[in-house]
């Protein structure tokens, strides 16, 4: 081919994928993805701050305070999980459950929140937790450091809404996340906050493509949050948190599972809707 033919061929090839994509222009995704990173950075700042207080309480041997700070500290991680779990090593050392290890609680590699949870809520003691607290603090600082420099993959951000709801549906409704502290509803709400943030950022673009979809998702989010709200300790004070998951009756667990599953399915189409498949 002559040079100009190369050029024409290259130009045609370059345009084809554009033509095949959804009506949403890739440029339109830049703003919401940047906004999402700012949301994650804000939450990380809070996460570092709360982890400092939580680990200080553990290290000071203040069982009561450490127990009280466990759930309110975790929420910041649970909100930004689509990004946080991109770092496989830190996700394991910060948030793995005992089931992820062959020797369970006794496994020497089992660290992080759930190891500390076991000490605080099962052993009812801060004894021997110092090393875990120190490790958690340094892992959280390392996470903060890595996320600052991270270019967020657009697919991960948009797909993150569904990932969070799938996680709730698959492994949280069962109450296995915070099995000793029974603070599952805090995590639950945090996962929903994180998913809803993503959905809200892309909602104007999604609405251009499918207004019914947007309405359905919003309604389901509202349903879940309404059920969750009945378990708030103080309706006027979100910081007061939630009752123990043991208090959530079977009917309400079902009432949560239904819309959560539908949300996970609906939100899994968001990537395609925005031309990111």
């Amino acid at each position: 081919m002559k040079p100009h033919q190369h050029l024409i061929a290259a130009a045609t090839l370059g345009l084809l994928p554009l033509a095949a994509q959804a009506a949403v222009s890739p440029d339109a995704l830049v703003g919401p993805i940047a906004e999402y990173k700012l949301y994650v950075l804000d939450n990380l700042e809070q996460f570092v701050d709360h982890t400092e207080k939580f680990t200080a309480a553990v290290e000071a041997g203040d069982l009561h305070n450490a127990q009280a700070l466990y759930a309110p500290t975790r929420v910041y991680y649970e909100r930004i999980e689509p990004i946080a779990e991109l770092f496989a090593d830190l996700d394991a050392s910060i948030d793995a459950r005992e089931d992820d290890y062959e020797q369970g609680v006794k496994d020497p590699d089992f660290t992080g929140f759930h190891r500390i949870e076991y000490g605080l809520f099962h052993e009812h003691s801060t004894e021997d937790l110092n090393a875990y607290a120190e490790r958690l603090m340094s892992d959280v600082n390392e996470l903060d450091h890595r996320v600052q420099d991270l270019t967020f993959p657009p697919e991960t951000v948009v797909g993150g809404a569904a990932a969070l709801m799938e996680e709730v549906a698959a492994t949280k409704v069962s109450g296995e996340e915070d099995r000793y502290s029974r603070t599952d509803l805090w995590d639950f709400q945090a996962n929903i906050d994180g998913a809803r943030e993503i959905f809200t950022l892309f909602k104007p673009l999604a609405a251009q493509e499918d207004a019914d979809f947007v309405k359905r998702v919003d309604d389901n989010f509202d349903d879940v949050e309404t059920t969750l709200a009945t378990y708030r300790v103080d309706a006027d004070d979100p910081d007061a948190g939630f009752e123990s998951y043991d208090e959530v009756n079977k009917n309400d667990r079902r009432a949560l599972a239904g819309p959560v599953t539908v949300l996970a399915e609906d939100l899994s189409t968001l990537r395609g809707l925005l031309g990111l498949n």
Partner: protein
Amino acid sequence: MTHSAPSSTPISRTTPSPRLLRAGLASSFLLMLIALGVFALSLQAVQPPRAEGFIVNVTAGGCQPEQLEVPAGQRTFTIVNRSDRAIEWEIIDGVMVLAERENIAPGLRQPLTASLTPGDYIMTCGLLSNPRGTLHVAPNGDTSQPKALVARDFIGPLAEYRVYTLLQLRQLTSQVRALHDAIYADDLHTARAAYLEARRIDQRLATPIGLFSDLDQRMNAHADYFAQRESDPDFGGFPRVALSLFERGTTTDLKPTIDRLVEDVETLKTRLEDAAIPPAQLANGSARVLQAWHDRQVSQATLSPRDLFDLAGLTEGAGKIVSLLAPLLERQAPGTLPPLNDDLATLQQDLANANADNTSGSDDSRGNDASGGPLARVESDDGIDAKRLLQDSEALAKSLSAINRALALSG
């Protein structure tokens, strides 16, 4: 993290006795081992791609096969959960998860498609305590040109650049505010320190600010560009502030200038909040601002410390852009990346050296800034050998301006 469910077996009346269960489990395990053995034997070094792609069995003890080799490109894996609990399967690049399939229930199979470039990856295999598998991605021998970049490839880098810009702007706003307050308080020393902080950020943002010629002119144009030079009524912004603070040693007469600068930074913020920066402007813009710095300095034998300080800010801004475009360059034109990185590293190193030289020679003129911070360096009058930095800045400008061709970007 996504977790495997605990292995709670539902109890029902039809549950066989534990002994029977154990026997059944043992025999099925034996059968599985035999099947796996046959399967392993049938594996070639490179599995041929099939409709279901490459099969990975995850057992209670790890991945089968433990080592997998696939050709580069879009590849499909089918993960078969042969353990008794829900698992996830991930492809990990270093410590980053590249692709994952979560919550695969026992006995089920799930597909996962990932776009893979040549290299070595890790596979997670069920329990975190299980040994990890390795995935080797071989070059697929396809020597054709890499697929042309499309707008979608720039979403990530442009979003990250926007975050960088917005965060820098927050700092710029507060530093210009501090400069404003110091000028109004007639505090020369504080004003000088605030000027340097603000100016450093202004220079980091030279590329996006350069998108708006009116603002750029008001904030950054040197006196030479005005008919009446220093005494021109339109001469303002950072250069005008610097003239008073550093050449004339006074904060007087700066109030109108700093008021205008505060206003211009606000306008900049509003504009950048919804500005779409064209991808080609990233490399072109940073090449242009470095070249402009070079061209302005080229006639001088020595650089003033403030010129050096400006270059440090420009280099930081360029470094961010290089880090954003590097992954794309690596994909499209890998040969262009090492020289670009070298040029950047050389400039950074020579800047660090110049700063060190400059600080060590400026003991008498540090004034109140005894720490040897930026203010001490800028207040010193030592000349800096300009030659190296001129060469470095021009070399980086040239490499940057070659990026768009390598990425097949125009505009």
